[in-house]
């Protein structure tokens, strides 16, 4: 059996953006879909405003579906190819019996405009759009119902930086106006940094580091996070990146290595990493990491500093 997400505990505060980054295939989309109730977890609880919403027994399913929206990573698979864009956007309003026809019409117009597409797109089909246009329709559709909580799975990966800026500004504005909460999944670390208050880093189904965005960005602790942060392009796009290149094989998620799952690629792997699985523990206020380098027994504080400078 493959555990796409294994023993993850996260909490997201109202009105905040939690960034979620991590290796391709590590389970980000799976976690996002569980959060948005599109997948059932095989174990564990899921609490929204203090109420356990995991399992189908919970009340107000329909209402929850409306308040928690998911923006798919692959818009192509989530947009019905037989419906025109106008209908796709209006549909959620209709299903929830919101507004009169004229109101729905103008809401669709406003939404199209705010994502940089004009009225003529109403009459197009999803396959008649470019990659980035489709992606924006996916976001617009999720926003139609005024959700409280939005899971955004790679929402701007197909957008040029100018349209991306427009969409990110829109998301920020909406968040401020309506105090929306976002789970923001992306591989673009500059975008995650811009959007997020806190960030969680996943590796092979587990969260290996979590903390305030600025803190993690400035002081990445987990060797995987350090590799990620080292490859962020600097101020100028044309500048060369000094990457920490990870060596070693990617492990098979259905046969996760003993001890620390990252040890096959970690330059600091030591004996303990083979035998003992590290757990997520606070190293500083609001900054937790799951790595033996940071547990007190194995290194003194000075040594930790050295390891960190050596690896950066």
């Amino acid at each position, binding site marked *: 059996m493959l555990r796409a997400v294994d023993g993850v505990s996260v909490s997201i505060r109202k009105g905040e953006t939690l960034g979620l980054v*991590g*290796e*391709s*295939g590590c389970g980000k*989309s799976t976690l996002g879909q569980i959060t948005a109730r599109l997948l059932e977890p095989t174990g564990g609880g899921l609490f929204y405003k203090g109420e356990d919403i995991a399992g189908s027994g919970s009340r107000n399913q329909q209402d929850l579906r409306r308040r928690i929206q998911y923006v798919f990573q*692959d818009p192509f*698979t989530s947009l019905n190819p037989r419906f025109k864009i106008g209908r796709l956007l209006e549909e959620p309003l209709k299903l929830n019996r919101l507004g009169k026809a004229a109101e729905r019409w103008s809401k669709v117009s406003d939404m199209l405009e705010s994502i*940089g597409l*004009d009225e*003529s797109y109403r009459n197009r089909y999803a*396959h*008649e*759009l*470019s*990659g*980035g*246009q489709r992606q*924006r329709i996916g976001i617009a559709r999720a926003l139609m119902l005024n959700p409280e909580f939005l899971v955004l799975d*790679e929402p701007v*990966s*197909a*957008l*040029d*930086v*100018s*349209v*991306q*800026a427009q969409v*990110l*500004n829109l998301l*920020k504005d909406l968040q401020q106006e309506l105090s929306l909460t976002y789970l923001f999944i992306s*591989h*673009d670390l*500059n*975008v995650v*940094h*811009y959007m997020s208050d806190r960030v969680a880093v996943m590796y092979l189904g587990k969260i290996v580091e979590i903390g305030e965005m*600025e803190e993690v*960005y400035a002081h990445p602790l987990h060797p995987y996070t350090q*590799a*990620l942060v080292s490859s*962020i*392009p*600097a*101020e*100028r*796009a*044309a*500048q*060369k*990146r000094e*990457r920490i*290149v*990870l060596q070693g*094989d*990617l*492990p*098979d*998620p259905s*046969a996760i290595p003993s001890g620390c799952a990252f040890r096959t690629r970690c330059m600091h792997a030591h004996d303990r990493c083979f035998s003992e699985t590290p757990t997520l523990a606070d190293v500083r206020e609001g900054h937790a990491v799951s790595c033996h380098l940071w547990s007190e027994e194995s290194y003194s504080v000075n040594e930790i500093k050295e390891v960190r400078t050596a690896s950066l």
Partner: protein
Amino acid sequence: MVGNQVERQKILDIRNLRIELKGRRERLAVVDGVSLSVSQGETLGIVGESGCGKSVLSLSMLGLLPKAMEINGGEIWYGEREDEAQPLHLLKPKELRKIRGREVAMVFQDPMSSLNNSLTIGYQVTEGLRLHLGYSRQEAAAQAIELFRKVGLARPEKLLKEYPHQLSGGMRQRVMIAIAIACNPGLLIADEPTTALDVTIQAQILEVMRQIRDQDGTSIVLISHDLGLIAEMCDRIAVMYAGRIVEEGSVADIFDRPRHPYTIGLLNSIPSPSHKGHRLHSIPGAVPALHERSVGCNFAPRCQYAMECCRIEQPKLSPVGFGHTTSCFLVVEEGVRKGDNRNTADRAEGTGEVLYETSVAAEGTGAASR
């Protein structure tokens, strides 16, 4: 370096290509008079606003245009040697099938729309090897596993038996890359090949692309919104706006001496750590829809420098430096004046507004002569 490039064989030569939507009363051009060429072993980057026609342009090179579109004017020539060049725009579907995947391969922007959900990954990767290279089933499977390792896919043996919907977004993308490079194509067209990959795996994919370029002499057309990636990989960059090329040049030309107002606006929108807490810059307005495109410069409705002539006449691509062309009345007018190397950004500074920082020009130039 540049001298060499001029002499190297053009493997792809697109001349004045026009692609239109079919069956409309008005002729709506999705791609409007694009000329581009790629030499052997060269990497050409294409960047531009979402919806400007990059994917349509690349699909046309493989004869895979959507049904609603057709080529109406212009030529696409492909060939590793000049005397063997083939007119891709004239070939029949059967002839194109022989070239596709074998000589010209493509990584599609949308993996789910090009991978077949009812066939195993193994079948889809080995198909080309068996069809084009005559591999046996076992040989092809062994080669597929090798390819999966190359693109950083874990558990390659098991993947062969899985279906596309069982993979994560980034895994599908890497399967597509494996399929594209399977038969050592002469030209690889990669449309947003790394959007779903984390930076560490992205680095690995770039390494694979460099390898096939340097060892096998494969030419690459790389389409991406990731300007850092473009800067890192490409020899030359073409900037597209609303179906036309508006600027073309070396990495240093585009990043350090951008001339077209759209290019400058684009570079200004890159989010960087210092933007945190501020609103991001974006070019005001939106791309004109196909039916709104005018006889003049397509950027005019959004351009702060737009003049009378911009709305009446279409600016032509004209040289503003060695190997650097742009289509803008403003720039061309100034650029041809001898000894004037100020660029649009500098002039904007005069108006009290910095358009784009060009302070690290020397370093950028070094990168371009790599």
